[in-house]
């Protein structure tokens, strides 16, 4: 016998929310206490009903799902939240996580996935889809932390060989302005102020 679960849904699309409600209510221990049509109504309903879980959409009028999640986490931390969105964008998934959501599901999920996610989240786990990783260029490990690009690293090596901006430009078939811009960006990324500081940095790095 599973413990009873009270849920509040939030979606501005009634037909969809009704569908989710009937899908959830096929499970005996789940009760849907209400459906909110926007983020603000959701916050009011949560304060009144104090459910175990809120399932909410991202794009809603008045207060979007991400902002609502932030408020829930701050004011009602005992209520678990699952984002149920039509978007699969990685930044929305990671923003939901950082705003304090416990789970993220696509609206195209099936009933099994929905129920699985609900029970995992209620057990205290967090449940997010796997995010794709950006294809990183192969960059020397000692410089990875500085977020330098391949070109910047190339220029840094030439600076280390005492090349002037003009010589670097000729060597790489770039204009001097481009080289100067890269050089300025390298200095900003390494948080260095002067050429002398750059020389010291290169020495420390053992280049």
């Amino acid at each position, binding site marked *: 016998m599973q413990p009873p679960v009270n849920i509040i849904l939030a979606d501005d*699309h009634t037909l*969809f929310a*009704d569908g989710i409600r009937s899908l959830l209510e096929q499970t005996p221990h789940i009760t849907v206490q209400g459906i909110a049509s926007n983020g603000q109504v959701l916050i009011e309903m949560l304060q009144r009903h104090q459910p175990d879980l809120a399932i909410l959409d991202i794009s809603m009028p008045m207060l979007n799902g991400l902002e609502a999640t932030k408020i829930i986490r701050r004011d009602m931390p005992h209520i678990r939240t699952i984002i149920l969105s039509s978007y699969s964008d990685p930044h929305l998934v990671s923003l939901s996580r950082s705003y304090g959501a416990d789970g993220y599901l696509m609206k*195209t999920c099936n009933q099994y996935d929905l129920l699985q996610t609900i029970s995992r989240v209620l057990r205290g786990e967090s449940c997010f889809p796997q995010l794709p990783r*950006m294809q990183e260029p192969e960059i020397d490990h000692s410089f990875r932390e500085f977020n330098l690009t391949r070109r910047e690293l190339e220029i840094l090596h030439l600076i280390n060989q005492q090349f002037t901006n003009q010589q670097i430009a000729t060597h790489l078939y770039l204009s001097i302005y481009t080289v100067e811009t890269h050089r300025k960006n390298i200095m900003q990324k390494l948080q260095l102020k002067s050429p002398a500081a750059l020389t010291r940095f290169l020495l420390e790095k053992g280049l």
Partner: protein
Amino acid sequence: MSEEILTHLIPSITVTQEPIMYSLRLTHPVSSYLLSTGILPATCWGIAALWIIVMIKRLDIYEKKQHDLLLQLERQQTMMAIQEVSIQEAERKRIAADIHDEIGSNLAAIRVNLQSLHYRTAQDEQQASNLLQLVDQTSQNVRRAAHNLVPPLFGHIPLTDILQSYFSLLRTPEVLFHFCNNKYQPCFDARQELMLYRIVMELTTNIIRHSRASAATIQLLYYPEYLEILVEDDGIGLPLNGRPSGIGLSGVKTRVKSLGGKLHIDSGISGTTFIIHIPVIPQHAAPC
């Protein structure tokens, strides 16, 4: 004597024409005096010089007017281009909202309702499952279409997050894209950020379509006074004789101009580098 010269010079004048002869008798000494003292030639030269000065002045005024008119025309053309871009943006936003809110939401509703139905036979269930697949496929296409028009929650989420997300999902067989940014600064409003987003998208599309590059780097670097967009590839460079606008750079140029920015293009055998500087407008600079 003088009368003789005059009658020789002006044969139609007869000596009998007394009043004329009188006036000639009077003016002739004056003119000979003016000629002999050099006043008349000097006056002539003076008038000629004055005339030349006036003409030069007029030419100057004409050239200035022409220059002003050209400037005005250019300003109007820029304004029109900017207006066209903003109308296009508003339209895109509307269509994206229509597609997402109407079609997308209805498809999601159809899906969830199909799932909650009870099917009597296995055949019914199979049919529903086929329908679900079709709905999923259509939802995906609708989502992609809306996303291409305007990314979801644009204006509520940092631009760098949206681009990071875009490039992490972008899988092109030929070009390896790398996106890099420093700390995001909310220096621009939603309308300006949408323009910045379009600039990056247009340059990315150009790289995929025309550059024949194997790698490309896109950077958004925030400095206190400006935002630097640096887009570089290792492709074949821009066509030498071909007008850059021919490959879709006109949109980039218009947007950079309307943001008061500067565009620098460095193209050669090692690829193309676009360096764009967009100034931070003082009223938006406060939160930075």
